[in-house]
């Protein structure tokens, strides 16, 4: 698992979990092809991770 600390590092995924001391209210906008998009900012000890669907291995067998 890689952690990115450098300024300008980016994450891109369908589902990212975030945590921070303060999260701005989301602003709504128009994305490409008339898709709606939301913007927000995390401030203070922000942590983001690309989510994974996890399951017990024993259960799957």
């Amino acid at each position, binding site marked *: 698992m890689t952690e990115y600390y450098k300024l300008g590092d980016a994450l891109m995924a369908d589902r990212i979990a975030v*945590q921070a001391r303060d999260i701005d209210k989301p602003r709504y906008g128009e994305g490409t092809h008339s898709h709606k998009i939301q913007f927000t900012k995390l401030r203070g000890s922000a942590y983001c991770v690309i989510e994974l669907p996890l*399951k*017990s291995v024993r259960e799957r067998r």
Partner: protein
Amino acid sequence: MKTNLSQVEATKAWPWSARSTDWLLAKPEEREKFIVLGDSAGLTKEDIEEKVRRVKGSIQLEQLVMTMPFGGLEPADVLYLMEENASLRQEIEQIKQKLSELEERIPEERVIVLREISREEAKEEIRQLFLNGRTLYYSDIAEELGLDLKLVVDICHELQESGEIGVDDRVL
């Protein structure tokens, strides 16, 4: 004193008695008769008091009507105000509908108190959570157990490496 009952009945319908009209229509020389007799002719004291009360009530009612919002308005103005009122009500309904739509879009705020427990305790709780066979994301675990997201990610990584949990390919 004799009372003319038909006259009393008539005055109940309208405080201005027929006698008053008679007085107005009468010739000047005949008016004296009305003045002498007055309205009390054929009426008891109680009847006169009743008439006075009705006249006062009528005046008060008239004053009330004059002070009502539409008291001094023309019918066209009243009609315009009614149309304006209807359109404003319609606008309020539209605003209410839009407001409820916006409220639905705002995510519900929920306070999660992060517990400060040892790493080993947290690991055990996460293991227990996976025992029921559910597919869970990092955020689900952090929310359900009230744990720090980074701690959850670290522990899940450890559990993945030890082969206890794995990525559910069916969801991807």
